[in-house]
């Protein structure tokens, strides 16, 4: 049960193996046509409309929107928070994966299920779940509403599975012989980890972290109740878009949206290239 709800490595990508590919028959050609029309109506045209709306005012208007002090503050906060969360996830996620794979103790399987919960929960419910313990009537006396720590905690919650679930399978596959060899040659446990294990985990940690970063940048639902949305203080990019929409400033909303879209596209293309390279090498 290494990847129950999370499939971060994105196996939707087909391999580049050309073997076994049929030419389109008339029937499958029609099928492809129908699928493309639906995909365009649902995904491509609307996304193109966002780009169109952002570009409608020209480069100057686009640039002015993004460099407007309040918008810029929201973008900066989003990137900083996402960056912090990514660093914490990179370290703690690896530790969690390590414990889940290498350690044996009572209740380990329950922890394995717990990892998937943040991903399975609806985002608004995730926000409410955190608020029940760290909200206004917190039993432990911590109130994260309208604080940057609150945003950090919410992002940490929703991105928890990414690194764990990408590192876990790699750790399971690792060959014990190499570690035995290193140890028999006198390497300490730490040296073995740093020189033997860590290098083989780095691609997985990177992949998981970048997926987590992309998710954190675009996160919305879990922040709605937690972030107080105060300009310059606790306003993040996705909530800024909502504010633009509610203020009937579609061009402003589209400008920020295009930025988020670029981050999303960059992440999946980069991961696609990396996974292809790794697949070729392996």
């Amino acid at each position: 049960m290494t990847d129950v709800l999370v499939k971060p490595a994105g196996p939707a990508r087909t391999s580049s193996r050309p073997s076994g590919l049929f030419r389109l028959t008339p029937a499958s050609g029609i099928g492809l046509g129908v699928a493309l029309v639906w995909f365009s109506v649902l995904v491509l045209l609307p996304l193109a409309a966002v780009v169109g709306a952002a570009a409608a005012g020209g480069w100057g208007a686009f640039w002015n929107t993004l460099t407007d002090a309040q918008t810029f503050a929201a973008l900066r906060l989003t990137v900083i928070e996402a960056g912090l969360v990514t660093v914490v996830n990179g370290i703690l996620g690896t530790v969690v994966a390590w414990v889940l794979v290498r350690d044996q103790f009572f209740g380990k399987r329950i922890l394995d299920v717990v990892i998937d919960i943040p991903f399975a929960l609806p985002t608004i419910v995730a926000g409410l779940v955190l608020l029940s313990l760290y909200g206004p009537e917190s039993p432990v006396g911590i109130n994260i509403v309208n604080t940057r720590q609150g945003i950090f905690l919410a992002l940490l919650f929703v991105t928890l599975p990414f690194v764990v679930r990408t590192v876990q399978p790699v750790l399971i596959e690792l060959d014990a012989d190499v570690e035995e060899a290193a140890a028999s040659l006198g390497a300490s446990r730490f040296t073995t980890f740093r020189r033997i294990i860590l290098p083989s985990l780095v691609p997985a940690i990177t992949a998981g972290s970048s997926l987590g970063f992309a998710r954190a940048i675009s996160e919305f639902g879990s922040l709605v109740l937690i972030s107080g949305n105060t300009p310059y203080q606790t306003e993040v990019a996705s909530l800024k878009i909502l504010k633009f929409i509610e203020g009937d400033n579609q061009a402003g909303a589209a400008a920020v949206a295009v930025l988020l879209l670029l981050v999303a596209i960059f992440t999946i293309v980069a991961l696609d290239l990396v996974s292809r390279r790794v697949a070729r090498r392996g």
Partner: protein
Amino acid sequence: MADTSTIRGRKSPVTYVMRFSVIAYLSVLVVWPLYEVTARTFAPIERGAEGGFSAFLERLQDPSVTYAFQLTATCAFWAVLINTVFGVGISLLLVRYQFPGRRVLSVLVDLPMSVSPVVVGLALVLAYSSGQGWFGGVLESAGIFIIGTTPGLIMATAFVSLPLVVREIVPVLEEIGIDAELAASSLGANGWQTFRRITLPSIKWAVVYGVVLSLARSLGEFGAVKIVSPGAEFRGETATILIQNRYTNYEEPTAYAAAFVLVLASVLALVVVSLIRKPDHQ
């Protein structure tokens, strides 16, 4: 794991420190908040609010709550149906057929999961709203309204869960290869017979798995739905929007009751998914 190697089996103080840290981290981040949500659902902190299971059921039977859950169920049903048909079709095309742009399409199909839900909502508004959308005017003159109506909600839901079925089927299709299909067609089976008798049985579990994941995701979608919906009581208020509205209106007990139902649904999805995964591994 049947790992009996001496190096890996050795326990040092570090092992226990890491085990304890991971348990503490996951408890504080996930387990305790989840417990607190459950506690608040059945014993609301709010003054005058009744606790217990019957009060919980009563809150769920409020007409506006049943309306919200019915709307959510309707949207999820249609979105999952559309995504399943589309997902099976596009997976077959991507894996089995050769056509220009195949690789680009396989990357694009994964895009919807990485797009921020707010951006999804904005994209649909900019394409189809009768006031500002690219195609809004045309659709309006044809008497079709998408934004603010149930079809719009279904589109938003279908958008965000689109890749889930594809992601499950593509790896299975790649793994089983085409030998059986070629054999069937050489024995005189037509395309439909080959699909129904050979391909479908082998991707059956992947389809079920993808459907469960899509369903869980569809039931919990918030951001995209929030943008395209009027979001008022009895007018496009889905379960997730209801949670936000009630929480911000100081009707916490109802918000917690609805959230608890969604928590149960996602935990159920996790359980089902891990049960399906098991036979896969054996």
